[in-house]
C-alpha cells in the first residue's frame, strides 16, 4: 500500500520536477551575467519590504518616470493592502492622505468639462499613472530609436526577474567599448544597451534619510517594481499556505475514508 502511494507521489514529483527543469532550461538559454540576490519577497513565505518600496517609488518618480511608464499602475494601488503606502486606519486608498498627496505631485491629462479641450490637472488616487509619451513612436523618437519598456510588468517580463532589473542598473561598465549610442552592460543580453546609466550615487535624496548609493537605489527601485508587477504576491502566498494545509488534511481524511471503504475487500 505504501509502495503504491509512494510510487505515485514519486512519479508525480518527478514529472513536476521534469516540467520545472524543462521550463528552467528554456529560460537558461540567453542570460547575461546576473548577480544573484536573496530578495526578501522570494520563497514561499516572502514579503515585500515596505520601506524599500517607498524609497523605490521615489527613485521611480524622480529618475525613471521621465522615460518609462507604469501603464498598469494607478495611484490607488499604492494605498492598497500590501502596497508601499498602505495605511491600516484608512484601508480605502481614497482616504489615504499620503496617497492623495503623492498623486497630487503628478499631472494627468483630462478633458475640460465645459469646453471639451484637453487640459492637465493634478492626479487623484483614482487616476492611472500618466504615460511619459503619448505613443510608442514618440517614445522611440526621444530615446534613440528604442522604446523604454513599461516598468509595471518588467520583473515578470524578463528572464531573471528582479535579478535582471537590478543587474541592468548595476552592471554598466563604462570602461568597456560600445558603439555610438549604446553602453556596455554585462546584464543586458548582447551587452549593448541603449539606455544611459540612469543611476549614480546621490541621484536621489531619500525622504527617510537612507544613503542613496547606486546599489541602494537599485535594490529599492527593484523592490518597488517587483511589487508593481505582482502586487498580490503576499495575499497569494498566504492563501496558498492555508490552502496547502487544508488540502493536506483533506487528502489524509480522504485516504482514511478510502481505506475504510475498501476494508476487507480483496483487490
Amino acid at each position, binding site marked *: 500500500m505504501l509502495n503504491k502511494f509512494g510510487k505515485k507521489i514519486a512519479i508525480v514529483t518527478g514529472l513536476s520536477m521534469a516540467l520545472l527543469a524543462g521550463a528552467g532550461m528554456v529560460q537558461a538559454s540567453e542570460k547575461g551575467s546576473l548577480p544573484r540576490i536573496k530578495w526578501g519577497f522570494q520563497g514561499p513565505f516572502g514579503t515585500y519590504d515596505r520601506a524599500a518600496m517607498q524609497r523605490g517609488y521615489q527613485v521611480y518618480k524622480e529618475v525613471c518616470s521621465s522615460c518609462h511608464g507604469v501603464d498598469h499602475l494607478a495611484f490607488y494601488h499604492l494605498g492598497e493592502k500590501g502596497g508601499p503606502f498602505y495605511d491600516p486606519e484608512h484601508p480605502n486608498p481614497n482616504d489615504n492622505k499620503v496617497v492623495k498627496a503623492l498623486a497630487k505631485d503628478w499631472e494627468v491629462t483630462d478633458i475640460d468639462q465645459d469646453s471639451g479641450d484637453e487640459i492637465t490637472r493634478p492626479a487623484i488616487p483614482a487616476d492611472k499613472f500618466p504615460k511619459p509619451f503619448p505613443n510608442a513612436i514618440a517614445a522611440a523618437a526621444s530615446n534613440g530609436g528604442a522604446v523604454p519598456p513599461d516598468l509595471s510588468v518588467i520583473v515578470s517580463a524578463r528572464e531573471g*526577474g528582479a535579478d535582471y532589473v537590478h543587474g541592468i542598473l548595476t552592471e554598466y561598465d563604462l570602461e568597456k567599448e560600445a558603439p555610438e549610442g549604446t553602453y556596455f552592460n554585462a546584464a543586458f543580453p548582447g551587452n549593448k544597451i541603449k539606455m544611459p546609466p540612469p543611476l549614480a550615487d546621490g541621484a536621489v535624496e531619500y525622504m527617510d534619510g537612507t544613503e542613496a548609493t547606486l546599489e541602494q537605489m537599485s535594490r529599492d527601485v527593484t523592490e518597488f517594481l517587483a511589487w508593481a508587477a505582482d502586487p498580490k504576491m503576499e495575499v497569494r502566498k498566504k492563501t496558498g499556505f492555508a490552502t496547502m494545509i487544508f488540502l493536506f488534511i483533506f487528502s489524509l481524511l480522504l485516504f482514511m475514508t478510502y481505506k475504510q471503504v475498501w476494508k476487507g475487500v480483496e483487490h
Partner: protein
Amino acid sequence: MSGHSTYEPKYAAERWIDKRLPIIRFGVDFMHFPSPRNLNYWYAFGAILSLCLIAQIITGVILAMHYTPHVDLAFDSIQRIKRDVPFGWLLQPMHAVGASMFFFAVYVHMFRGLFYGSYKAPRELLWIIGCLIYLAMMATAFLGYTLPWGQMSFWGATVITGFFGAIPIVGESLQYWLLGGYSVGAPTLNRFFSLHYLLPFVIFALVFLHVWAVHHVGQNNPIGVEPKSEEDTLSFHPYYTMKDAFAIAVFLLIFALFVFYLPDALGHSDNYIKANPMVTPEHIVPEWYFLPFYAILRAVPSKLLGIILMFGAIVVLFILPWLDTARVKSMRFRPVTKWFFIIFVIACFVLGWCGAHAPSDIAIPIGENGMTFKTVSRIATLYYFGFFLLILPIMGWIEKTKPVPESITKAVLAGEA
C-alpha cells in the same frame, strides 16, 4: 458491461420523474456501475480530467466576464483582472495553470491507455473519441494562449496559422480566411476568443460520448481480462468514488502548489510583453504540452513535410487499434513490448526537451561538433513513428506473451492484479 438497471424508485415523486425522464435512474446506475475490482491509481485520471474540464469552464466563463478581446485592450484587461478584479489574482492563474494540469492528466490518461491496451476491441471507438477530445483540447489551448495578446501569443499564432498557408493550392486562401486578413490581427483575436469559448462545450459533448462508450463496453483493467462474473467487479460508488476523490485531492495539492507559489513557472516571460508585430522574440516556443510536436515539426528541413509529420503524429493515434496486432491487451503480459513502450515514453520526453531548444543548439556534446537538437529530434521522431507503424504490428505477431490470468478474481487472489 451495460447490464440492466438496478434502480427501484421508492417514493411517488421518484416514480413520477422516472416514468417521464429516467434521470435519477441514470445517476443511480452510474453510481452502481460494476467496475473491475483491480483498478489502480492510473485509472483515476478519467475522473481527474472531468474535474479539470469543469474547473476550466467555470474559471473561463468567469474570466470572460472581465476580459476584452480587442488588440488594444486584451493585455490590459488581463492585468486588470490580476490587480483589480476581486480574486482575479487567483482566478487567472487557476485557469492558466489549469490548462497545464489538464494536459498533464490527459497524457497520463493516454499513456495508461497505451500500456493496458485500452484501445483494443471493443474499445476502438472509445479510443477514437478520446483522440478527438485530445485534438479539441489542443485547439482550445492554442486559441486560449493567443488571448493574453503577449509576444508569445501573437507569434505563436503567426507560426501556427502559417501552417495552413503551406497547404498546396488552397493554403493561402485558407489562411486568409482563418486570419480575417493578411496577418494575425484584431479580427483574428476576436474570432479566436469566440472559438475558445465554444470548443470546451464541444469537448463536453465528446466527453459525454466517451463516458457513455466506456459504460457500454465496461472499463478495461490492469490485466486486460474482461470481468467474467459479479465477483470480478465492485460498485463504482463508494469504492471508486472514494479512491478517485483521494487521487483528486493529491492532484489538487500539485495544482495548488503551482497556482499559489509558481504561477508563472510553466509559462514564458515573453508573454508579459505586449504583442508587437514589428519585433519577433528570440525563441518562439509553445507551451510545454506542445513541445513534442514542435520538435517533430522542426526535425525535418521541409516546411510541408514537417507539418505533415506533426499532424501525422496525432493521426497515427487514431488508427492505433488497427496497428497493434497483439491479442493480449495489457503490456504486463507482453514483456518485450513493455520495454519498447518505456522507450516510447522516454522518446516523448526527449521530443519535449528538444522542442524547448533551437534546433541548431548542441544537445549532447559528443563527437566532433556535438549532436544538435535537430539530430536528436530526428532519432526520437523516427522512434515515435516506428513504435506505432512497425513495432506494435510486428511485436503483436511475433512476441511470446506471458500467460494471462483466467479472471480478475483469480489474479487478485494470487496477488497479481
